[in-house]
């Protein structure tokens, strides 16, 4: 009886120590993203930077008029590299949107450059080349 009890206590104790270990590291598959990152030799500094990029992008997007829920889903979809690009360049990256705000002067210049085939602002121009 006491042998069984001792075995039981031993088992419980070893289970506890085991749990203690596995709290930090799970015995499991290592993810593709982790192995890829280690393989690409991205340093720890980059990883720390990446951790800070996402909250920053989230704040930027909200400031630029994106709703909180949308912004969260959008940030979650970014790769680390994309998050880093947006965190540092969100105000300077070109925003493709087809903004038509040409003034008269610009209109004339662009008309000429359209005809030269350098630009294509107006649907009615036909490039000479």
């Amino acid at each position, binding site marked *: 009886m006491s042998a069984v009890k001792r075995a039981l206590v031993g088992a419980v104790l070893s289970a506890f120590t*085991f749990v203690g*270990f*596995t709290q*930090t*590291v*799970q*015995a*499991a*598959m*290592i*993810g*593709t*993203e*982790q*192995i*890829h990152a*280690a*393989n690409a030799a991205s340093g720890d500094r980059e990883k720390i930077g990446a951790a800070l990029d996402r909250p920053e992008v989230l704040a930027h*997007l909200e*400031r*630029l*008029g*994106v*709703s909180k829920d*949308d912004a969260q*889903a*959008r940030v*979650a*979809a*970014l*790769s680390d*590299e*994309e998050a880093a*690009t*947006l965190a540092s360049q*969100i105000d300077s*990256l*070109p*925003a*493709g*949107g*087809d*903004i*038509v705000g*040409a003034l008269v*002067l*610009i209109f004339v*210049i*662009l008309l*000429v*450059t359209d005809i*030269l*085939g*350098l*630009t*294509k*602002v107006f*649907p009615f121009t036909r*490039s000479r*080349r």
Partner: protein
Amino acid sequence: MQGERGRTSPWLGSVFVWLAAMLLLAGCATQTQSLLMRGVPDLPRRAELSSTPFHPQERYQCGPAALAMSLNAAGIAVGPEALVSQVFVPAREGSLQPEMLAAARRNGAVGVVIPPRLDALAAEIAAGNPVIVLQNLSLPLFPLWHYAVAIGYDLDAETIVLRSGITERLEMPLSTFENTWARSGYWGMVAAPPGRIPVTPGEAAIVDSLVAFERTAGSAKVRGAYQAALKRWPDNLTLQVGFGNAAFAAGDLKTAESVFRRAADAHPKNAAVLNNLATVLADMGELDRAADIAARAVALGGPWQEEAEATLRSIRSARKAGVGR
């Protein structure tokens, strides 16, 4: 007189400076010239993906419209309206490139940037992939950033065909297109269905895009993409791991085991691969082989030591429990 001159001359002067600069720039569509003169072997003289659907854009919404057209061409049913909340940035009145790529992934396509070259653009179209291009239709001074979808070209007529803005079929001289495209650094992307790997991006670009795709879309959707990419780059470690992990997640232990075994043969010093192989073997009930492999992973040390030790411990305790049974 003095005052009048002061008012008009900077105005006129700058116009002349611009015009002079434009004339100097007029002959700089160099990629077009080399593409037309030298050509590219195996590239058809003309191609057009005329079945690509068309969504005319709303004001400022060329990003969602271009993305929807490209996703539709990849067989993914989504309209521009649904994409507005995924890419449009209200205060910027437009959409940004990283988010165009991310949104392609969110909707189940692999978004990849193509090499910044006209011949790469043409090669993707010839391979059946419409290309989303970012153009500055205006001059760098008053930019007019615009996303369009390139769906065709004709090297003899020297034209490119775009789905652009509210024009379903915009034919533009290649040299004009190059001038507008060059201002974005020749930025173009393909949103490809997971089983079809775009033809022009290099190994690193494709692998990065698939890892990002796995993060967003999950392992079930990315499995076919890893498999397709492995056909082109059979020795790539990340692709092997990705495919093996996806097979494991789907419960296909046999495939996972053979993939990781091949990866371990090719990369015997990679403890992460050995760790995953050991985990798969343990799940298959082959505890002795699993313990051997895990012990090899532990012996290698390095950044995966802790994970390998945990795997070895759990295999050993499973083996003990098995012996008791």
